[in-house]
């Protein structure tokens, strides 16, 4: 009957992490995403070598994200009790994987500049 609004979720996230940390994390995510887009535009192509290394970090990011959430919530893989739990774990793993890949790719590009022509 009563509907959560986007504003409610923002309020809840702010309380969860603290206002500063929450918006700090949002800014960080936006900055990394912008940097990623920036290097893509600057280099005008995806560097497959950098992408390969980035891909290697995907499983690490996935496991780290899931491990982190289990650790802060005092739970364990054995607590998965139904389909939504599985979807949630997979979602967290996906976010961790994609996040790690983007981060690694961007860091390489920013540090090393455009790679050799491929």
């Amino acid at each position, binding site marked *: 009957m009563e509907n959560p609004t986007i504003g409610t979720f923002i309020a*809840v996230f702010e309380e969860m992490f603290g206002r500063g940390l929450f918006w700090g994390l949002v800014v960080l995510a936006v900055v990394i995403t912008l940097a990623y887009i920036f290097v893509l535009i600057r280099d005008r192509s995806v560097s497959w070598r950098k992408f390969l290394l980035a891909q290697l970090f995907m499983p690490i990011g996935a496991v780290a994200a899931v491990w982190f*959430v289990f650790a802060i919530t005092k739970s364990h893989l054995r607590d998965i009790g139904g389909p939504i739990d599985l979807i949630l774990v997979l979602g967290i793993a996906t976010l961790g994987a994609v996040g790690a890949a983007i981060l690694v790719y961007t860091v390489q590009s920013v540090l090393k500049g455009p790679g050799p022509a491929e």
Partner: protein
Amino acid sequence: MPDQPDFETRRRLLGLIAAGGAISALPSAPAARAQTIQSSARIVIIGAGAAGTAIANRLSTRIDGAQITIVDPRQRHLYQPGFTLIAAGLRPAEYSVSATADWLPRGITWIEGAATGIDPEAKRVTTSTGDRLDYDYLIVASGLELHYEGIEGMSRDLIGQNGIGSVYAGPEEAEATWREMDRFTDEGGVGLFTRPATEMKCAGAPLKYTFLTDDYARRKGTRDRMEIIYCAHSGSLFGVPIVNEKVRMLYDRQGFDTRYNRVMTAIDPGRKIATFRTPDGGSEEIAFDFTNVIPPMRAAQVVRDGGLSWQTGANGEQGWIEVDQYTLRHTRHDTVFAVGDVAGVPKGKTAASAKWQVPVVEDQLIAQIAGGQTDHIYTGYTSCPLITRVGRAMLIEFDYNNDLVPSFPGIIAPLEELWVSWLIKEIGLKATYNAMLRGRA
């Protein structure tokens, strides 16, 4: 307000976002609306707990010029749903403690004393600080009183010794309860769990703590050295039939010895024996090595003496305020509202209920000041993340009708033991609670 189809879609979508983001919120009342009214009404709020603080924040942004006074002697704000986590050794006592002052809005007056008298005829509240507060509107949000002395031989200072725990008493007592439970689950013996026959806040809490004790014993490998007895005050474990059936199944699965129609009337801490009233009028003694005493509950003295309570029945004896269950407006004094645990309504003694009640009182009061009416009503929404072990819970939500009213229908199954429901209790609930206090959820 029936669900609009587009609302429903949006809600599911937000539910998915919430679940996908590894957090979830309690269902939310609409955030305080921007539109404000002008009024110089004098509004007195008794109690700055969950409900009182939330309504103070909401009214202070909705009414321009009102004189809002909140009365509460307590300097410490207590996030009570956290007591269960403290008593499970998962959080320190400080987890539930913050300062009342930090949550109150600017521009209102906080009187740091107790309300000692309410005169609804003269529309006046008197306080322990000697103030006389004349009001146009009164909102009673004084929560409830834990009546430990209602159990012969019991008092708060026994908590934390001789196997006596009590999760409800406060954060320090919850921590002391954890020490006793930790010791008990090392040693084994008889674990005795129960609930009072009165109305109580968070009727799921006694059940949760039984599950948690069982879980620790299993983790430590001592479960076969103990007996877990649960004494239900009536013929069921939970007031909502469909939930009761589920809990009964889980209790059987965990091997609890469930005894119905047993109400704790006395405790002998030296001999470690509790006495229960039985349905035939007799009594039964049960020896324990660990027990979680949950006392009878009733409205605060000032409420019981103030002529606002129901006049007959159990509601009258326990002193809950006689309000219309949908509008939360007093049935005999139309400028008085009750919100939170003190309201004499059939369901709703949880913080999650307060979250739904507060916007109703806000809208009802504002409509009344503006000389109009509103159809915004409270339908009994009550919620309780029923922990069944560390790492899993059932997100149980229901209304006056005993209908299940899941916030995330089709996504989070209410009667399944899920990790996502545990996450809601473990990380989502306090954040949602805090957002509610600020009037933002």
